[in-house]
């Protein structure tokens, strides 16, 4: 099977052709935002990080910024630095340019303040955008496609129908040679033994147990019951009582194939098969980690209803809650709630999601894209200094 997408010089495919503006540090956010306002079809990913960070925490910020820039949906990148932060802009530029895409980089201190930086940045961004607009889509194999599966704002319908239906679609993609990644380590607590049965090897199984154990010990260290934080008040209002119940409903969105490996947050998602990314359940951090891992799009189930998208990848919203679908059609792309009235089989629901994935991969905009949702956030693992 083929789709129409952009062929990148490193052999990857892109289903979008974004111009990405990356501030290396929060201090460069406003200049990046101003440049994005001046140049159509450019996206600035403001964030709170990039300075007063050390060690693995600093590395994580770097990896997410680099991975987002390397995402194949991004055609070119403009990096805007302040000039004194801990994230090295030249190292970041080099890492992103290893994909073969064009990367420009400058710092605000050298250019001489915000106004000059905005003018300088706008000129660079304009040139990059013009180059990107010369590119044309070509026929590329669907087997190159990488899909993130995610659930957020869950209620009881997520586990009963939207997640298992998404699992059917994930199986379809893997059957044609594509890859899928499931995350949310917090939301497999109590269900990890079910997922572990499908691990490709003893090592993969142990890694899965290890990351869950690591997360759970962190909650123990805090001395709190995770209920209230996860499941959230909305999850509980929607009928989910414990993290175990939520987790058991969550894992079905990954389908039924072998779990090939467990990868780190924001690490590159390999080709072919199902993978688990160690990530928080937090929607934006998880989706941002998947985008930094190179997925082309995320299929996202919700029962309570959530509008969020992503800076560089389309996010398809799927629901099994009819009432919410009718209330929030502005934000929902696929309705599979008829599974719960007997009007739709799980296979048909999965097919409906699969068709939407194909349409969006071929260029159809998701509701989140149309509404301008460009959420981006970076998971922290250390204190600010």
């Amino acid at each position, binding site marked *: 099977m083929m789709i129409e997408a952009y062929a990148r010089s490193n052999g990857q495919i892109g289903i979008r052709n974004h111009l990405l503006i990356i501030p290396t540090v929060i201090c460069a956010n406003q200049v990046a935002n101003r440049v994005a306002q001046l140049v159509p079809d450019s996206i600035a990913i403001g964030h709170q990080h990039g300075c007063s960070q050390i060690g693995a925490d600093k590395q994580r910020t770097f990896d997410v910024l680099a991975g987002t820039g390397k995402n194949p949906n991004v055609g070119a990148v403009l990096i805007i630095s302040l000039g004194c932060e801990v994230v090295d802009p030249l190292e970041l530029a080099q890492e992103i340019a290893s994909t073969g895409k064009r990367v420009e980089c400058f710092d605000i201190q050298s250019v001489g303040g915000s106004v000059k930086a905005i003018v300088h940045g706008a000129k660079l961004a304009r040139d990059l955008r013009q180059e990107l607009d010369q590119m044309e889509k070509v026929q590329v194999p669907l087997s190159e496609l990488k899909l993130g599966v995610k659930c957020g704002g869950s*209620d*009881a*319908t997520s*586990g*009963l129908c939207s997640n*298992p239906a998404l699992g059917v679609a994930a199986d379809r993609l893997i059957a044609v040679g594509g890859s899928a990644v499931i995350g949310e380590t*917090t939301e497999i*607590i*109590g*269900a990890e033994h*079910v997922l572990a049965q499908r691990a490709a090897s003893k090592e993969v199984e142990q890694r899965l147990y290890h990351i869950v154990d690591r997360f*759970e010990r962190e*909650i*123990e*260290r*805090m*001395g*709190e*019951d*995770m*209920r209230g934080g*996860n499941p959230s008040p909305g999850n*509980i209002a*929607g*009928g989910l*009582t*414990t*993290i*175990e*119940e939520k987790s*058991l*409903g969550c894992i079905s969105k990954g389908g039924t194939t072998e779990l090939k490996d467990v990868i780190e947050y924001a690490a590159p998602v390999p080709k072919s098969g199902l993978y688990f990314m160690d990530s928080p359940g937090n929607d934006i951090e998880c989706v941002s980690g998947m985008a930094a891992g190179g997925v082309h799009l995320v299929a996202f189930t919700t*029962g309570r209803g959530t509008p969020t998208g992503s800076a560089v990848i389309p996010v398809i919203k799927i629901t099994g*809650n009819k*009432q919410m679908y009718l209330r929030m059609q502005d934000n929902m792309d696929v309705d599979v709630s008829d*599974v*719960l*009235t*007997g*009007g*739709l*089989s*799980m*296979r048909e629901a999965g097919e409906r999601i699969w068709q939407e994935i194909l349409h969006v991969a071929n260029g159809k905009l998701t509701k989140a894209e149309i509404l301008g949702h460009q959420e981006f956030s970076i998971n922290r693992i250390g204190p600010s200094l």
Partner: protein
Amino acid sequence: MKEGLQQGVNAIVMHELDDVATALEELASGQEVEFWLNEKMERIQLLDAIPFGHKFAIRDIASAQHVRKYGEVIGRATQQIACGAHVHVHNLEGIRGRGDQQRKEAAEG
């Protein structure tokens, strides 16, 4: 759950080992509900009103007993739960991710 759902039922049991069913519509206290279990249509009378998506017991559950949904343990009953009663945060607690209990145990030595 099977490939498709029978039309007209108002609750669903995900696995034959389950202690709870999930309401597929708003259900009233005293209402008789129908769901499939082991290929058989079961009927029970509700003791509480059950909001859409919430759970009720399909058999009596003893205090401290593990409670199952999807055929797996979703937590522990904090009190005795009668067949037909609402099962939620007031009578079912999680076993995992309980730093509060660790802290209590540490304080009690």
